[in-house]
């Protein structure tokens, strides 16, 4: 399969996920239409304000076995995709989504309040001592990974220890 040459807009990933689920993915989205060992696995949510990283994370997670990737650049964008977001089994949340905007912590609370039962992993490039990051560390139902996270560790989030993918 050939990779799509043009950059993939962030919001399009939602459509990719839905299309994959419904089997209606257009031909130009071949990258995500391939057969992977282990078959379809889980849907993941990536909340990250950096466009490049968000795209790459989705790319990596899908390549590593995720069924689909729902991505959002902000809390508001995530809320707008409520239905798809709440179907995810894994949420990868950036703690800091920019100055004076809701943080990854707010997204976590929103997810839990709306019945999200999947795993939550925070990504942070910031000081462990910052109150927001400290709060993230105090959450028992979430993991906190400090950027830059080893790619293998990220891939392992959607893989079982035996090398197969999560069902």
């Amino acid at each position: 399969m050939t990779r799509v040459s043009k950059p993939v807009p962030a919001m399009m990933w939602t459509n990719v996920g839905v299309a994959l689920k419904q089997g209606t993915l257009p031909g130009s989205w071949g990258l995500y239409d391939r057969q992977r060992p282990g078959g379809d696995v889980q849907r993941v949510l990536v909340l990250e304000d950096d466009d490049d990283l968000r795209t790459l994370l989705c790319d990596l997670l899908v390549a590593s076995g995720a069924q689909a990737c729902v991505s959002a650049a902000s809390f508001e964008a995530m809320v707008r995709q409520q239905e798809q977001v709440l179907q995810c089994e894994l949420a990868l949340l950036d703690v800091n989504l920019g100055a004076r905007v809701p943080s990854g912590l707010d997204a976590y609370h929103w997810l839990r309040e709306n019945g999200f039962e999947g795993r939550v992993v925070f990504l942070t490039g910031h000081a462990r001592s910052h109150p927001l990051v400290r709060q993230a560390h105090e959450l028992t139902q979430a993991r906190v990974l400090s950027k830059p996270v080893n790619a293998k560790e990220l891939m392992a989030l959607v893989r079982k220890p035996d090398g197969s993918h999560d069902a």
Partner: protein
Amino acid sequence: MAHTTPSAPPLRETDEQRARAWWGAFFATALTLLGEVAYIFIDWRVHAGDLTLPTLRALHVLEAVGLLALLVARRRTASSQLSAGVFTAVALPYLIIFAVAEVAMAALGHVWLPLTGHRLLMLGIGMLAPAGLKVGLGLIGAFALESVLLWYGLALDERLDMPWEPWITLVWGGTGCGLLVFRVRTWRIEQRLQKARAEAESLERVARLFLAMRDAANTPLQSLEVGVSLLQQRSPENAALLVTMERALSRLRSLTVRMAIADPLLDWDSEEESIDAEEVLRNLEESLTRELERRRH
């Protein structure tokens, strides 16, 4: 490889040190001016017909006026040494004036309290001498010595029934020294605290800079990390090239990890405090600009 240890730069005289020394010299000179003007008239009346003391005091007043003018002209740039010099210059003439006054008073035969000027001046030096023991202790010592010499030289111990003199004057001198030592000690403690505070602030600024740079670098680094991993999967034929990229990434990663050493130094004021690297860097740039402006003036 030879390592060079950077030597600590000499401590710069702070604005506060200069200001304190300036105010001490200014007060002493102004008080001298007022006191000596008053004594011109007092001596005029007490030593009628003898112009020695009024003349000496008038000369002292002129000197004080000149020194005050110098201090005012250099109020922003006067160093502590200049202020100490002014203080010494305004205090030393008292040695001559007091000696002449005591001799004149002894000759008059009036009832008077000898060595009063010495006592007051020694206390004044203790309270106003620019911070530094040498000048203050030297001046107090000189006035204490002169008081003893005058007491015995003028045979005041035989003429006056004051068995406590000149010892009580020496006690005043000791009190002046005590005051001076207390002031210098307090000043040094303040100086150490100020230095510690400045160092802490400087370290926190460095820590914030480290943090901001690390924060700004971590997301692109993460993109590179993920990108390289994807390339390793998709372009295995470029394995050798990707290994070198991986090594470069690893070096950058260890650099950002080392920057994390400054984290514990940070004292976050509130949960709302921005962790936006751009904003932190912008604030630091503004602080540096302000500091540069301050140093230019």
